[in-house]
């Protein structure tokens, strides 16, 4: 036990004296949270669009004002021909053009049917779709407003609620994903590198020749990263709550316990990697390829899993971060208790035990 403490103390010296490790450990979460929270958002705001009003009647003016008053668009007005419209879009500053035909108002008044053309920049399909949705909603709203003037027999108005995220806060979905990503990166990469580093430097040999038990070598390597990752987790939650205004709906304790479990999963994976590699670069690369990319692709935090081919959905089942992502989403965003996530937790526990078992077994074999 005393030997273990000696060892853990030494590991802490290593971590705190290595600026790069510290930077990865605490700089990465900060950067990623801010990036995902602010820069990589799918929300569309302050998009510049052009309205070409060829009608200039009361209806087109009213609709233009409605579009202008929305927070999503910066409206520039232009009365131009269709050739110029393409030019504007090609420049790229303007993402959409709304064109009122010259008889817009009179068509609406007389036949009760009018056309308005919306042209968007399809080279950015996500933004284009969002703009179309917003504009359609505004136009539909206007139609409603003037509905008494042109009585419609039936109207169906879909009332949309985004449950668990009423304000459409884009950070919400990212936070659990980013948490999985960061813990994965920090735990797996740093642990594997720290073990392999000793192999590279030759100190591992000395440790193995000492009466220190090989298993203890692995455990004491993992302990500092376990502690630091827990600190890291708290940091991420604080950032999420206070900077990105994400509310933690469920139990903080449960969240912490589940995260600790996931941290151990990642540490075990890191130890396993360190057994099969002998250079720091390989270890880092393997952790990145083996963990980061599957985490990004298969957790469903950037790309919906449901849209993937069946085979990929199957593969996603063996990615630990997928299950962690589900757990965190359930606890943090939906406020669910342990009863709802015990299955995912069990899967993670089994994965962790398997990984840890392999790591410890291989470490022994290497000695014989």
């Amino acid at each position, binding site marked *: 036990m005393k*030997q273990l403490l*000696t060892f853990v103390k030494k590991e802490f010296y*290593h971590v705190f*004296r290595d600026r790069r490790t510290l930077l990865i450990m605490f700089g990465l979460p900060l950067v990623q949270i801010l990036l995902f929270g602010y820069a990589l958002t799918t929300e569309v705001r302050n998009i510049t669009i052009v309205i070409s009003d060829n009608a200039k009647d009361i209806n087109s003016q009213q609709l233009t004002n409605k579009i202008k008053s929305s927070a999503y668009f910066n409206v520039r007005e232009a009365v131009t021909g269709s050739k110029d419209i393409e030019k504007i879009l090609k420049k790229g500053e303007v993402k959409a053009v709304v064109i009122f035909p010259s008889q817009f108002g009179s068509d609406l008044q007389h036949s009760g049917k009018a056309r308005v053309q919306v042209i968007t920049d399809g080279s950015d399909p996500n933004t284009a779709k969002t703009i179309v949705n917003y504009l359609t909603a505004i136009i539909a709203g206007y139609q409603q407003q003037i509905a008494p003037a042109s009585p419609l027999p039936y109207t169906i108005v879909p009332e949309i609620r985004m449950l668990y995220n009423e304000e459409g806060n884009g950070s919400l979905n990212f936070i659990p994903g980013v948490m999985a990503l960061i813990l994965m990166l920090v735990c797996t990469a740093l642990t594997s590198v720290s073990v392999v580093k000793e192999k590279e430097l*030759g100190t591992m040999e*000395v440790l193995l*020749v*000492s009466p*220190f038990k090989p298993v203890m070598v692995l455990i004491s390597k993992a302990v500092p990263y376990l502690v630091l990752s827990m600190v890291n987790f708290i940091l991420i939650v604080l950032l999420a709550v206070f900077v990105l205004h994400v509310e933690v709906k469920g139990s903080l304790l449960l969240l912490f316990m589940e995260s600790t479990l996931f941290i151990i999963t990642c540490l075990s994976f890191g130890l396993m990697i360190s057994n099969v590699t002998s250079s720091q670069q390989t270890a880092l690369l393997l952790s990145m390829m083996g963990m980061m990319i599957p985490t990004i692709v298969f957790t469903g935090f950037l790309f919906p899993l449901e849209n993937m081919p069946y085979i990929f959905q199957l593969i996603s089942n063996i990615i630990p971060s997928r299950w962690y992502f589900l757990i965190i989403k359930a606890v943090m965003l939906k406020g669910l208790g342990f009863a709802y996530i015990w299955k995912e937790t069990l899967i993670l526990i089994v994965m962790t035990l398997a990984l840890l078992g392999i790591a410890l077994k291989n470490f022994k074999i290497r000695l014989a």
Partner: protein
Amino acid sequence: MEEKVITCRNLTKQFGNFYAVNNISFDVYRGEIFGFLGANGAGKTTAMRILCGLSFPSSGEASVAGFDVYRQQELIKQHIGYMSQKFSLYENLTVLENIEFFGGAYGISRKEINKRSEELVRKLGLQREAKKLVGELPLGWKQKLAFSVAIFHQPKIVFLDEPTGGVDPVTRRQFWDMIYEAAAAGITIFVTTHYMDEAEYCNRVTIMVDGKIEALDSPANLKKQFAANTVEDVFYKLARGAKRENSG
């Protein structure tokens, strides 16, 4: 009768059809400086790993410090020191922290570590550097410190795996002075080296070729036996017959 600290009888290590160590037998006595020579791939490292409790032999018997290499690896580790060709201290720990860590790994009490490390630092003349990171020390000092750390827990035997690689001649000489001092204090030195002049410093020398021991005697007797002027000549005469390539 001198006390035997290492005994080897028909020790063999086989990897598939390859005999890395082929039926070797020898004894090492207490306080002796025992040189272990051989080209790369001759089986030195494999033999040493077995004796250090890092690997099991395929057949044969061996005991180190009175403990069996099959069943008592943990006890062997408790009683030996080890220094590898690679620098084996932590560069980003200070001199004192390194001593404290390795002392702790061998289960020496805190009080004892403090006492001994103070003595050691004074002996090496490192008082001013004691709180500096080891990475900042010149290589010669690092090697001397590494050796001192390897024998810090007062082992019966210390295994040195090419300890003077890349060190300048003056430091090498000083390093050997330290080895003599340790041997005089009763620590047995088991050393592998590529430097043939160093082989002359040993009490007895073993030359391994292709996994077998081809010669084992004092440098003076070896020279007589093979009608050579230096141990280097003896080595070349024997190594010329080697069939294995330098395969590590």
